[in-house]
């Protein structure tokens, strides 16, 4: 079974990630990397929180990336990742291109971890950059656009996290009340108008 180490000082996020991987992998969740014992020091995949507060808690991201150079390291943060992670060019290190919030891991990050776990057994037959393209190929804004438009066309409430992301980038698609500009009397036209805003048409 694939072995995963999760290094994250935030308890709720670490526990949620551990839960989502349980059953598919052997999981070792820890608050800081230094407490990982030598027996678990060679995981197949490391989920590494690379926010500044992880370093403030005692971890050196640079040293952890060096220590786990034989493993795949999927870096993430709820804010801006530290430079040691973003500047790392190794094909076995990839930074997830969207925020992973501490109280809501989000379905996209979990799906990306699952995608890596699915591909992991076939890694010998995959091209060198498979890990980075599986992680960095994800476009959080495009996914939010597609998911929000699908939800409103089904007359369902879009996920709050998706709406938040789009509101930041496309404020003109939203009213002053924070809701998308959908009008029941001209429903299809208003969905079309939102689509035009989101896809810059």
């Amino acid at each position, binding site marked *: 079974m694939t072995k995963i180490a999760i290094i994250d000082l935030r308890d709720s996020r670490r526990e949620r990630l551990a839960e989502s991987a349980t059953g598919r992998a052997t999981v070792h969740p820890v608050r800081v990397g230094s407490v990982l014992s030598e027996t678990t020091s060679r995981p197949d995949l490391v989920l590494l929180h690379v926010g500044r507060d992880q370093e403030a808690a005692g971890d050196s991201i640079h040293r952890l990336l060096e220590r786990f150079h034989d493993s795949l390291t999927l870096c993430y943060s709820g804010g801006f990742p530290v430079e040691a992670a973003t500047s790392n060019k190794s094909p076995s290190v990839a930074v997830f291109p969207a925020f992973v919030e501490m109280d809501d891991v989000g379905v996209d990050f979990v*799906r990306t971890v*699952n995608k890596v776990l699915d591909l992991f057994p076939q890694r010998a037959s995959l091209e060198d950059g498979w890990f980075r393209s599986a992680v960095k190929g994800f*476009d959080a804004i*495009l996914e939010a656009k597609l998911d929000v438009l699908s939800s409103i*066309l089904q007359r369902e409430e879009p996920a709050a996290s998706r709406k938040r992301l789009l509101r930041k980038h496309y404020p003109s698609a939203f009213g002053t009340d924070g809701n998308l500009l959908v009008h029941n009397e001209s429903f299809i036209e208003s969905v079309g108008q939102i689509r035009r805003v989101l896809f810059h048409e």
Partner: protein
Amino acid sequence: MHIELLDDCAFPWQGAAVTPCSVSPEDNLDRWFWTWAREHRARLYALTRGIFLINANGRFTSGAHRQDLQGMEVLKHIRVTPWLGSIATWHAIVYSFEPLDDILARKPGDLILTSPGVTFLRLPVTDRDISARCSHIDPPPEPCFYGVNLDGPPGRLRV
């Protein structure tokens, strides 16, 4: 004309009688397609003609993102599955919120979208838009690319 929906969403224009496809908990689209095709083959064989309605951004496995364009992979599977018989040649209406150019720029391998036998529609659409498209297609059916000619050069498609 029978309309076969391949979508995980229930959009209002699809009609109340149309049921979205189930989403596989397993993250394996090949297996999803194989299961779908086996389940529905007998029913679809009994029909003389039909049209596929496919959401390009459909999510057929739980681990997929909408941007993965699984609907396009399903269409390719349909076209190259010989045991589907004439079902593999049905016209496909593929729809998406994304512009066609964006899809092709992101995934050039989805050029099948511009092939004969495929109509691309930009969402949102109304049920009248779909009816108009379907009535235009029936008759006559357009030829479409389907099947892999194993006797010819590798990977060559036959019309």
